[in-house]
Structure formats: structure tokens, C-alpha cells
């Protein structure tokens, strides 16, 4: 008896040992890769942002001048504004529409059709965004399917090259993003709805609540966490968008679809303004965190 408890104590002591050096040996390789290829570049981005540098010659100290440029140069500032406008398409449409669709198909969520739909709606998440960009550039072209459909329903007057028109390019790019993200949001919300106790809905029906009332007072509040996830994922996708825009418009026409990610790419690798590119990169990283954190807190609050 005494012996086995001594044995146990020895084992526990050894286990405690693993909280020190032995345990750290497990963490170190991951931390090393993270430090070399993520943390160091983050620190360097901060450093570069304070200098003027063409990437080749010597650099000169610039202080906060590059940040001043980000907020005063209309080209740079507009890219930030565009990114926020994209949130309407990347986040608002998929989340609101996703909620409506998920609520409508909730009752048939286990049907055969819904199982097929689950696979189909996930396709945009699986293919490269580049491919989505190419496919949609063609759909939205002046001879594309979108215009064909519009003419078919008698709206031939509004047809145009959607991605080449100053007024419609940004919304058109936004619709591509909405297409990519709508399926994911719908399925996430649907998965959340399947966890809601059906008794809640029965009680509401007995109290004479209509579908709208049900939706507002039961469905939406119970989905707080799923909604927060959808909003976080889609807002980040909007602010950090790159692939779709690089392929479909390259920021044009003019600067109407320029976003920070693409602007950083051009500044750093074509215009050789590494300092300005880095300042914009810092602003982008801060904006993403500033948008993501409050949404997380909001979701956590609901769980208490």
C-alpha cells in the first residue's frame, strides 16, 4: 500500500517535471517556426514602416511620415475605405441572407435534398479564390451570363461590363465575395439552429407567435455565437481581400476596387516604396485585430 502510494507520488513528480524542460521541448519547434516566419516579419514590418526605402539602396529615417501618407494620400486612404465598403457585401449579405435561408430550410435540414445542398454550397470554399475570380470575371463580362439573364427578364437597359464600370466595379467584386461566403455562413448557421431546443419553437407557436416573431425572439438570440463567427470570418475576408481582386480587376478601373492588400503588393514590389507599403500593412493588421476582438467579446458575453 505504502509502496504503491510512493510509486504514485514519484509518477506525479515526474509528471510535474514535464511542465518544465521536457514540456517545453514539445513547444519549441512550433514556436521557432512561428518566431522566424511570422513574429520576426511582423516586427520588421513595424521597423520598415518608419523608414523610407526603395528595397535596394540605403534607407533613411522617416518617422511617422509614412503613416501620415496612408491617411492623407487619397489613393492609399481610398483603399481602406473600399475595404470597409466590401464588408457590406462580404459580411452583411452572407450573414443576413444566410440567416434567412437557414431559417427557411431548417425544417427540411435532414432531407436528402438538403444533404446534397450541403455539399454543393461548400464548393466555393474548396476551390481556389483565383478560380472563383476567373469564373466570375467571365460571368460579369459584357457578353457574360449575368447580362444574358438581365436581358432575358427585360432589363437589357442596365447591362454593362460590370467589372469595368467605375460605378459598379466595387459592388461587382463584392458580389463575388458574397458568392464565396454565403454557403459557409448558411451552413454554419444551420448547424447552430439544429442545436436549438425544438420545445422553444413549440411553446412560441402555442403562444401564437408567427414565423417572424419566432425568428427574432428565438432563432437569432440562440445563434449569437454562430453569428459572431460568421461576422468575424467574413469581415477578415473583406479587409484582407486580395486574390479575387487581383484576378478580376487588379484594383481598377481607376482605383475603384483597390484594397489595402493589393496596394501593399503594388507599393512593395512594383513601386518600390517599402516604407509606405509597410505602414499600410501595419494599419491593416491593426484594423483586422480591432474588428475581430470586439466581435469575440460580444460572443463571449452571451455565453455567461
Amino acid at each position, binding site marked *: 500500500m505504502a509502496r504503491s502510494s510512493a510509486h504514485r507520488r514519484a509518477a*506525479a513528480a515526474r509528471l510535474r517535471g*514535464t511542465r518544465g524542460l521536457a514540456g517545453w521541448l514539445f513547444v519549441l519547434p512550433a514556436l521557432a*517556426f*512561428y518566431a522566424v516566419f511570422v513574429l520576426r516579419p511582423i516586427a520588421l514590418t513595424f521597423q520598415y514602416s518608419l523608414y523610407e526605402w526603395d528595397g535596394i539602396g540605403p534607407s533613411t529615417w522617416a518617422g511617422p511620415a509614412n503613416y501620415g501618407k496612408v491617411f492623407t494620400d487619397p489613393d492609399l486612404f481610398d483603399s481602406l475605405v473600399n475595404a470597409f465598403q466590401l464588408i457590406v457585401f462580404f459580411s452583411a449579405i452572407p450573414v443576413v441572407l444566410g440567416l434567412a435561408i437557414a431559417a427557411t430550410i431548417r425544417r427540411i435540414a435532414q432531407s436528402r435534398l438538403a444533404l446534397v*445542398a450541403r455539399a454543393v454550397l461548400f464548393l466555393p470554399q474548396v476551390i481556389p479564390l483565383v478560380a472563383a475570380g476567373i469564373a466570375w470575371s467571365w460571368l460579369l463580362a459584357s457578353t457574360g451570363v449575368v447580362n444574358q439573364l438581365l436581358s432575358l427578364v427585360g432589363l437589357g437597359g442596365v447591362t454593362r461590363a460590370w467589372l469595368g464600370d467605375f460605378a459598379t466595379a466595387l459592388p461587382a467584386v463584392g458580389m463575388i465575395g458574397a458568392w464565396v461566403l454565403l454557403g*459557409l455562413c448558411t451552413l454554419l448557421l444551420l448547424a447552430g439552429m439544429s442545436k436549438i431546443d425544438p420545445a422553444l419553437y413549440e411553446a412560441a407557436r402555442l403562444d401564437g407567435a408567427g414565423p417572424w416573431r419566432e425568428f427574432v425572439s428565438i432563432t437569432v438570440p440562440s445563434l449569437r455565437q454562430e453569428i459572431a463567427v*460568421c461576422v468575424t470570418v467574413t469581415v477578415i475576408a473583406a479587409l484582407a481581400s486580395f486574390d479575387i481582386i487581383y484576378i478580376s480587376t487588379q484594383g481598377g478601373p481607376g482605383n475603384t476596387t483597390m484594397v489595402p492588400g493589393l496596394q501593399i*503588393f503594388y507599393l512593395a514590389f512594383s513601386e518600390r516604396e517599402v516604407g509606405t507599403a509597410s505602414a499600410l500593412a501595419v494599419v491593416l493588421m491593426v484594423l483586422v485585430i480591432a474588428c475581430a476582438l470586439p466581435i469575440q467579446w460580444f460572443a463571449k458575453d452571451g455565453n455567461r
Partner: protein
Amino acid sequence: MITARREAWTGRLLLILMMAITLLPFLSLFVTALHPSGTYPAGLAWPDEPQWGNFPRAFEAANMGELLKSSVLIVLGVVPISILLGTMAGFAIGHLRVIGGRVVFLLFVLGLTLPFEGIITPLYYQIRDMGLLNTRWAIILPLIGLFMPFSVFWMRAHFVNMPGELSESARMDGANVWQLFRRIHVPLAMPAISSLGILLFLWTWNQFLLAIVLVDDPAKRTMSGALGAFQGQWGTDIPLLCAGSLLILTPTLAIFLIFQRHFVKALLQGSLKG
């Protein structure tokens, strides 16, 4: 009863409409790819003589054989190492609860939302100084680092729920930490590991930014990066571009259809946790 049936019908109609919208771009790519190359087909019109030859031509023009090989090599470089390192760190932080683990974990969590564009500039110079520009290592090594936040986060979430007694009894049998990890915890973590593997595979295969910045030669890029180059080269030949895009989509689509259930599960869990 009647309202319920009506709701079911609106639901079905809506689902079918959504599927149609989702599939429309693929259909358009497919129909356009069958038109004679160099033409500008109008919208969705079935060609008089479907040009099936566009697919082999695009296969050759895009150098698909090389591309597939390159993408597979990159995936093989990134995914196993990321899984191993992420699982080890997740185990130490979530289960062994190493001293200072909370701080390290926070450090990883901070990287979860990092946009890759934020660090691409210094990464370029760093990779250049390492002499790795234009090699597949230029994509592989940074991706492992960039995937660490999610991998560690994901695996920690699994290990945090493993009961401590499991390890204690193994330790009493004289197992050291590595044996404990390898023989007991890794097998139990297989579901979490395979979901992580699926997500990392997709994110590697579809990685675009790192590929176009760090590797000039399309034949050494990921599929996605090569597609960008293909568009630049054949952008004016719409049917050929569409055929090429479809070919480049095929591998992921095929793998998705085969492992459909796992993918959907992994993607849903992945976004919920991340």
C-alpha cells in the same frame, strides 16, 4: 399543418435556387470551355461543335503535369510538419500545461487573424537573404510558420479536454513523455488531426499570395499561383482559359467529393473554433 407544408416547399425552392447560383459559375466555365478557342462566346450557349480538344490543349499549355507535381511536393512539405509541430505544442500547452504555457498560447492566438499581406514585404527580403527565392522552400517554410497559430489552437482545444488520469496511469507504467505522446495521445487525437490535415491541405493548395510573390517560375508554385500566371498568359483566349481553370479545379474538387463528409465537418468546426 398547411403552413408547415408550405414552409417545406419554400425551403426546397430556396435550396434549389441557392444551388443553382452556386453552380452557375462552374456551368459557365464548362460551356465556355467547349467553344472554339479564340472566340468570345455570348453567355450560356451550347456550341455547335463542342471542342473537347480544348482540355488537352489547356493541359499542355498550363503544363499541368509539372503543376500537379509541384503542388503535391509543397503540400507534402507543409502539411505533415505543420501537423506534427502543432500537435506537439498543443499537447504541451493543453495537456502537460507547461509553465508559461498561457503566455505562449496567447502569442499564438494573436497570429490567428493575421492577414498574410501584413508580413509579405519583410518575408520577401528574409527569404531572399536565405537564398530561397524561386524554390519551393520559399512557400513551404513560411506557410508552416503561418499555420502554427491555427494548428496549435486547434490541437490545444482537443488536448485540453483529455483527462489527466490517462497520462498518470501511463506514467506509472514507466512511459516517458514522448512515449506517452506517441503511444497514447496521438492515436486518441486522430479525429482532430485528420480534420486539421484537411484544412491545412486546402489552405496550402489554394495559397496564392506567397506563390506569386516568392516564386517566379509557375512550375514551382501551388496550383492556385500557377492559375494566376496562366491567366496572365492566356487571358485573351477565353475558352482556353476556362478549360485551364476547370482542369486546375479538378484535383481539389475530386478530393472534396471523395472526402465530402470529412471536409464539411472540418470546415464547419474549423471556422467555429478559428
